[in-house]
C-alpha cells in the first residue's frame, strides 16, 4: 500500500439570507426571532450612522484617522448576539464597533479613541472588551489567554476575537490559533474577509482561496459564511459559542464580506480598486437585505424605518456631543497609569514635566537660579 490517505477535510459554506433577500427557511429556521433580527438591524443602522458622522468629523478636522466599518456590520452583530454581556469577552480589531456596543461599550468611547484619547479604551467595570487593536493580528493571542483563564477557573466564559484577512498573515495569528486548539480553550475566531488589507488584495495576501482552510492547520472546527448575512453569521456563531462554552474548544468562522469605505480616512481606495467591485458589493449590503426581508415578511415597514433612522441620527448626535464635550485630558494623565504606583523617577518627571536634571531640581548646588530666571524671561519674548 504505497499511497494512502494521510488527511482529508471538507469545509461548509453557510448562507441563509442572500443578497436578494431570499431566506433559506430550512437552515434559517430558529436561528433568531424577528425581534432579534430587528434588534440587530437597529444596531447596524446606528453603527452605520456613527460611521458616516465619524467620517465627517474627520474631514472637518475634529477627529484623527478613522476606519469606517461600513458594509461589515453583519459579522459584528451576528456574533455579538451569541455572546453574554458581562461574562463573555470580545477582543476586537477595529471594524466591529457594533459588536462592542452590543456588548456594553458606550458608543462615544469609540469616538474618543479615534480622537486620540486613551479614555476611549478605559473600559467601564463589567464591560468585557479589550481596546481596539491598531497593531494588526497581535490581539488574538490575548483572546486565547482570556479563554484559557476561564478553563483554568472552570468557568465557561467565551472569548470572541475579530480580525481581518490581512491579519491572518501575521505569525501571531498562527500562534493564537495553535495555542487555542492545542489547549482546547473556548475562543471563537472571526476572520472578517473583506478582500483587502489597505491596498493589498486577498490574492497578494495569500495563495489560499479561503480563510477557513487555515483552521485545518490546527485541527480546528471551521466554517465559511456569508458575512453580510446576519442569519448565517449568527448560525455559525451560536454553534461556535456553544462548543466553546461546553469546553470543546475553539472554532474559526470566516465571514466573507467587503469594506465599502476607504481603509481609513487617511486612505483613498480609488488608487487601487475598481469602482465596479465596490458597486457590486453595495448591492450586497448587510443592512439592506434585512430591511427588505423583514418588510416583505410584514415585520417592518417604511414608517418604522424612517423613525428608526431619525432615532439613529439623534443617538449619534448625542454620542458626538459626549465625545466632543469630554473634559480635556490632563497632561499628567499619561504618567498616572504607567504603573500601579509611580516609581520615584517617573514621579519627578511628572511633577516637573522635565527630564533634564537641572530642570528637575532647580535648587541644586551649582545652578544659578537667578540667571535661569533671567534667561527664561528672554525665552518667553
Amino acid at each position: 500500500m504505497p499511497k494512502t490517505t494521510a488527511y482529508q477535510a471538507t469545509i461548509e459554506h453557510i448562507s441563509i439570507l442572500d443578497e436578494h433577500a431570499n431566506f433559506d427557511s430550512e437552515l434559517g429556521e430558529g436561528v433568531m426571532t424577528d425581534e432579534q433580527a430587528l434588534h440587530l438591524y437597529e444596531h447596524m443602522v446606528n453603527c452605520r450612522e456613527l460611521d458616516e458622522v465619524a467620517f465627517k468629523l474627520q474631514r472637518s478636522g475634529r477627529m484623527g484617522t478613522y476606519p469606517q466599518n461600513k458594509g461589515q456590520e453583519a459579522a459584528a452583530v451576528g456574533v455579538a448576539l451569541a455572546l453574554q454581556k458581562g461574562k463573555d469577552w470580545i477582543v476586537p480589531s477595529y471594524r466591529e464597533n457594533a459588536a462592542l456596543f452590543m456588548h456594553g461599550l458606550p458608543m462615544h468611547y469609540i469616538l474618543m479613541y479615534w480622537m486620540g484619547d486613551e479614555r476611549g479604551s478605559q473600559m467601564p467595570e463589567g464591560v468585557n472588551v479589550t481596546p481596539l487593536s491598531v497593531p494588526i493580528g497581535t490581539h488574538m493571542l490575548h483572546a486565547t489567554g482570556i479563554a484559557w483563564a476561564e478553563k483554568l477557573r472552570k468557568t465557561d466564559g467565551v472569548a470572541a476575537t475579530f480580525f481581518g484577512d490581512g491579519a491572518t498573515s501575521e505569525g501571531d495569528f498562527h500562534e493564537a490559533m495553535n495555542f487555542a486548539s492545542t489547549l482546547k480553550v473556548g475562543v471563537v475566531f472571526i476572520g472578517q474577509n473583506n478582500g483587502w488589507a489597505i491596498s493589498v488584495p486577498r490574492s497578494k495576501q495569500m495563495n489560499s482561496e479561503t480563510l477557513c482552510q487555515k483552521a485545518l492547520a490546527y485541527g480546528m472546527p471551521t466554517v465559511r459564511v456569508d458575512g453580510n448575512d446576519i442569519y448565517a453569521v449568527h448560525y455559525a456563531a451560536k454553534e461556535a459559542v456553544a462548543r466553546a462554552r461546553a469546553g470543546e474548544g475553539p472554532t474559526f468562522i470566516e465571514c466573507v464580506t467587503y469594506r465599502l469605505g476607504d481603509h481609513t480616512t487617511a486612505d483613498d481606495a480609488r488608487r487601487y480598486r475598481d469602482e465596479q467591485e465596490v458597486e457590486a458589493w453595495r448591492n450586497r449590503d448587510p443592512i439592506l437585505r434585512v430591511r427588505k426581508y423583514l418588510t416583505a415578511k410584514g415585520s417592518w415597514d417604511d414608517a418604522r424605518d424612517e423613525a428608526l433612522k431619525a432615532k439613529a441620527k439623534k443617538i449619534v448626535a448625542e454620542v458626538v456631543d459626549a465625545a466632543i464635550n469630554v473634559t480635556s485630558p490632563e497632561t499628567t494623565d499619561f504618567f498616572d497609569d504607567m504603573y500601579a504606583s509611580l516609581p520615584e523617577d517617573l514621579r519627578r518627571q511628572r511633577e516637573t514635566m522635565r527630564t533634564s536634571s537641572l530642570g528637575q531640581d532647580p535648587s541644586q548646588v551649582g545652578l544659578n537660579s537667578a540667571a535661569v530666571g533671567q534667561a527664561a524671561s528672554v525665552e518667553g519674548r
Partner: protein
Amino acid sequence: MATLNLVQAITLTLQQAMQADERVILLGEDVGLNGGVFRVTDGLQAQFGEHRVVDTPLAESGIIGTAIGLAINGMRPIPEIQFEGFLGPAYDQIVNHAARYRNRTRGAIPVPLTIRVPVGGGIHAPELHSDSPETIYAHSPGIKVVYPTTPSDAKGLLTAAIRDPDPVIFFEPKKVYRSFREEVSEDDYEIEIGKAKVVNEGSDLTIVTWGASLFECLGAMDNAPDDVDIELIDLRTIFPMDIDTIAESVEKTGRCIVVHEAPLTGGMGAEVSARIQERCFLHLEAPVQRVTGFDTIMPFYKLENEYLVDAKRIGSAIAETLAY
C-alpha cells in the same frame, strides 16, 4: 538641483538606486500600486514593475526574514516597515538574524539590506504610530542605524545605506516628511554613514539631536538671548556614533544638551552623555543635560505635544545649563 521635501528626496533616491542596480528591490505592505501609506514609493511600481516593487503579505517578520534571504542570495532588498511601531514583530529577524549573519559566518554570508522605517511622533496618528525605537537597534550589534532629518542628508545617506554591505535601519522622521523643502542634488552622491553634521557653529553650548527634534532645537535657539552662541549638531547616524565631532564641540563649549524624542531611560541621550564625560571630563563646565521623551508610553495624539520635546523645554535647559 531640485527643490524637494523629505518624501520626494527619498523617492528620488530609491528611483536612482533601482535604475543603477538591478539587484535593488522594494518590498513591504502597500508599497506597490498604493505607493506606500506616505507615498514614498509612489510611481515606482509603475516604473519598475511588480517584481521589483512588491506588495507583501501583512507580516513584518516575514518581510525582514525574506529580505534577509534575498540579500543572502545576491539581491539588495529595501524592505519598508509601515510605521516604527510595527518593527516589533520583526525585531527578532533584525537583531538576531540580519545583524548576526556576517559575524557568525565569519564573513562568509553578509546581509546587505536597508530597512526603511517612518519614525517618531507629531502627526496626530493612532497608537503605535509615533514611537522612537532607535536605541533598541543601536544597542544591537551588527546593524547600523541611520536617522537623517533633511532631504539632502536623506538622499546621501540612503544612497550610502543601499550600497553598504551591511544591514542598515534607515529611520525617516515622518513629521518632517512634508514639512519643508530644500535644494537637493539630482547627481549621485553619498554621505558617509557615521558622520554627524554641525548645523550651526557656536561657542557657548553644544546641542546634539536628531530627527524632528532638530526643528525644536532651532526654535529654542531662536528664542535664546542674542549673546548665547549655540553649536547645533545633527547626529544623523545613531550607530556608529560620531563621538569625535561631538567631543570636539564640547571641548570648545564645555556644556551640552542632548535632545531626542525617545524615552529618557536607556535612550541614546545616555550614551551621548556617557561618552561626553568619558572624552571631555576636564572640559565640562556643567552636567550634560538630556531633554527627551518621558519614561512613559507615547500618549495618544490629544496629549502627544505634551510628551514631545519642544522649544520651550529645550530653552529652559539651555538657560539652566548656561547658568550652571
